[in-house]
């Protein structure tokens, strides 16, 4: 089986992306997002589809929800041994699926709700998130046949090889309720059969769906790997997820500041700003110059309580944003938004490099 990252092969791909976010925290089922992404069927080729939902596990919201693919029982045994050693596992189950004629060769798909072992966490002298992310990286790098594809709290990623609408139905996403959904349909330029290669890609609660092929890939990868990340999959999405994790979680930048790093304004634009803004943008761009992402991309980053959409600086990929009351829709094509919301209050195309960020006004309802 060809697999992302093996033999050092890098697979470019085109794609469709879509996101729904409710600022009032109202949770809706996965049916809408499936309908929306299905409209953009032509933008995928059946070789990868996936979804991320936020607010789907209210009863376990304090626990990290690990979604794991296993190639076989042996991998599962090894991985569970590792999990039991480092975490308190409060719930373990297969992720419910429904047979679908077009979704084949599924791995074993399990879900664990976990918290770091208190004694282990204490002696590691790391914060809870760092501890958890290191463990996830360890499993994905060292345990053959096990792959953690979702590891956030009160959120989950669901992905497979197939068209996204079929993947949604396979995972029965109409039975989950989320205040934020993102979706992805993949058009890779080879024929991988590995489910882990589909999007979204996530680390802790930050998930990325992405359309494009970034030309700065190796510059970004070689830089971010200095900070302990391992880009095992050699996909653009993976490196973008790590960059956001580094800038936001580790360094404490806001999502908007992180956007000024990865899609930094042109120097000519920076020069036109007032003194303070010019200094700020110059500082961010210069300090993190190796994290500038060039080449076409549109991404939707989901995180706890918010969503960010961002295009590359030249806007080489289409992306529109629509609003209807508290609901926000983001999509590669407007058709997907119109399919699920016919009377939008507003719809517009964000400029290249302009981050569109929405956060919850209050809690989740």
């Amino acid at each position, binding site marked *: 089986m060809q697999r992302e990252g093996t033999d*050092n092969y890098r697979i470019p791909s085109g794609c469709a992306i879509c996101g729904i976010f409710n600022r009032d925290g109202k949770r809706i089922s996965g049916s809408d997002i499936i309908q929306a992404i299905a409209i953009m069927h032509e933008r995928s080729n059946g070789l990868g589809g996936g979804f991320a939902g936020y607010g789907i596990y209210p009863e376990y919201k304090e626990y990290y929800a690990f979604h794991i693919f296993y190639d076989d029982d042996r991998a599962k045994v090894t991985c569970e041994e590792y999990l039991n050693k480092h975490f308190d596992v409060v719930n373990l189950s297969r992720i419910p699926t429904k047979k679908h004629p077009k979704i084949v060769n599924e791995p074993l798909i399990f879900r664990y709700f976990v918290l770091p072992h208190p004694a282990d966490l204490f002696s590691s002298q790391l914060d809870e998130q760092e501890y958890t992310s290191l463990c996830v990286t360890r499993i994905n790098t060292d345990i053959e046949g096990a792959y953690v594809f979702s590891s956030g709290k009160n959120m989950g990623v669901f992905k497979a090889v197939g068209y996204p609408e079929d993947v949604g139905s396979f995972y029965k996403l109409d039975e989950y309720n989320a205040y934020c959904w993102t979706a992805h349909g993949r058009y890779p330029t080879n024929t991988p059969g590995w489910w882990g290669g589909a999007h979204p890609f996530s680390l802790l609660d930050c998930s990325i769906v992405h359309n494009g092929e970034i*030309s*700065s890939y*190796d510059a970004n990868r070689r830089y971010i790997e200095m900070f302990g990340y391992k880009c095992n999959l050699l996909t653009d999405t993976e490196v973008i997820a790590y960059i956001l994790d580094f800038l936001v979680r580790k360094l404490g930048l806001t999502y908007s500041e992180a956007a000024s790093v990865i899609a930094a304004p042109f120097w000519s634009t920076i020069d036109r700003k007032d003194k303070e803004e010019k200094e700020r943008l110059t500082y961010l761009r210069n*300090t993190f110059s190796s994290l500038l992402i*060039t080449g076409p991309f549109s991404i939707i980053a989901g995180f706890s309580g918010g969503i960010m959409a961002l295009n590359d600086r030249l806007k080489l990929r289409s992306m529109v944003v629509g609003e209807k009351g508290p609901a926000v829709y983001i999509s590669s094509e407007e058709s997907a938004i119109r399919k699920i919301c016919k009377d939008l209050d507003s719809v517009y195309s964000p400029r290249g490099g302009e981050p569109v960020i929405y956060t919850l006004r209050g809690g989740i309802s």
Partner: protein
Amino acid sequence: MPINYIIPQFEIVRDQSRCIKCRVCERQCANEVHHYDEDYKIMVADESKCVNCHRCVALCPTSALKIVKNQDSFKENGNWTAEIITDVYKQASSGGVLLSSMGNPMKFPVYWDKLLINASQVTNPSIDPLREPMETKTFLGQKKHEIKRDNEGRIISNLGPQLELSTPIMFSAMSYGSLSYNAHESLARAAKSLSILYNTGEGGLHEDFYQYGSNTIVQVASGRFGVHKDYLNAGAAVEIKMGQGAKPGIGGHLPGTKITEDVSKTRMIPVGTDAISPAPHHDIYSIEDLNQLVMSLKHATDFKKPVIVKIAAVHNVSAIASGIARSGADIIAIDGFRGGTGAAPVRIRDNVGIPIELALASVDTRLRNEGIRDNVSLVVGGSIRSSADVVKAIALGADAVYIATAALLALGCHLCRTCYSGKCNWGIATQREDLVKRLNPEIGYERLVNLINAWTHEIKEMMGGMGINSIEALRGNRLMLRGIGLNEKELEILGVRHAGE
């Protein structure tokens, strides 16, 4: 003594039917090759003095001259070549060290020529630099990752001093003394006009050129020639020269004949004395000493100027660079074994050091593995010959490049490799007034500006082809390179894959 006869390297072919005996060749040749034979009424030449600098060929009004390789030969021998036999004769006769100038001319592999650049097709659009912004602006200096904020949450910049370049190319160190006043003026004015930097070399800074300070790197070498507080503060950055690619491990020697009144004043040494830089800095015998000099220079410049440490590319260059990256220095400059020089012993120039491509790849990888790549910027030189070399250097991991030989070529140098003689017919590597005035700085600076602008255009075209619209996204982006005709080990060191992979 016939045994001392050295076959001249070149033959001067003069078309007597074209020659009008204007004697311009005679007047132009500082080596006194040409003269007019009163008896035969023709121009004749003493070929033994010819260095093939092409001055006479270029200025002959009737194109009557050409200089060709002397066909006279020793009996063919794959081991004992004509050059080696001749060198033995010379040394048997003089008992001296053989001298030469400019970079290593031997046929070692040029890795730049074994690297190929990528371009976008279908999955990713190429970008047209004529229609879209294409950015080459480069900052050099340490980058710190800690984010500091004030009470209102605004980010406070904690970056140390940075050098800002409009394009990632600088003129490498060449001293006033080894180069003429006019050559220095050309470099300084070009650097200012291009918003880049040139480098004083170890010869101090002529007072006329203090006005170009913001585009000047002032060098501190082992001889400390011309170093004083005002000098250190005159430039935009201070460079400690630990080594030079053309002659790693040895110091410099500027012959007394080049120490004229003006050069003497700038270097702060008496007229006519040899300027000899020691091989090591005698206050730096180890890495911890380097840290002290870096800090002394920072104190002397009030922590406002980045400090560059320049080293020659030698076998353990990555370990040395790792030490320097922890020494407080802001920038490491690495000079490859093909880098030029005003004068170096032939054996050292031709046999010591390693190619810059391998040194750069190895240093960049090492600093990243240790997580300290952002402690320093990397500048490489020796030798960068074209915009394609610049693109490849940056993709391997350099922040910027130094060029010197290419800059001299732009000023008219014909690479005859006899700078040490002080008789440069092109007015570049000489202090003889009649020769210096042959280089018009007005024209010289324009030609340098043209060269850098032309290269920058080409860099932008290549970046656009790769779908990259800012130079920092090319830096260290080794997937944009493929090797051709390289073995596994070479590919491993360069960190690139073979073409077709």
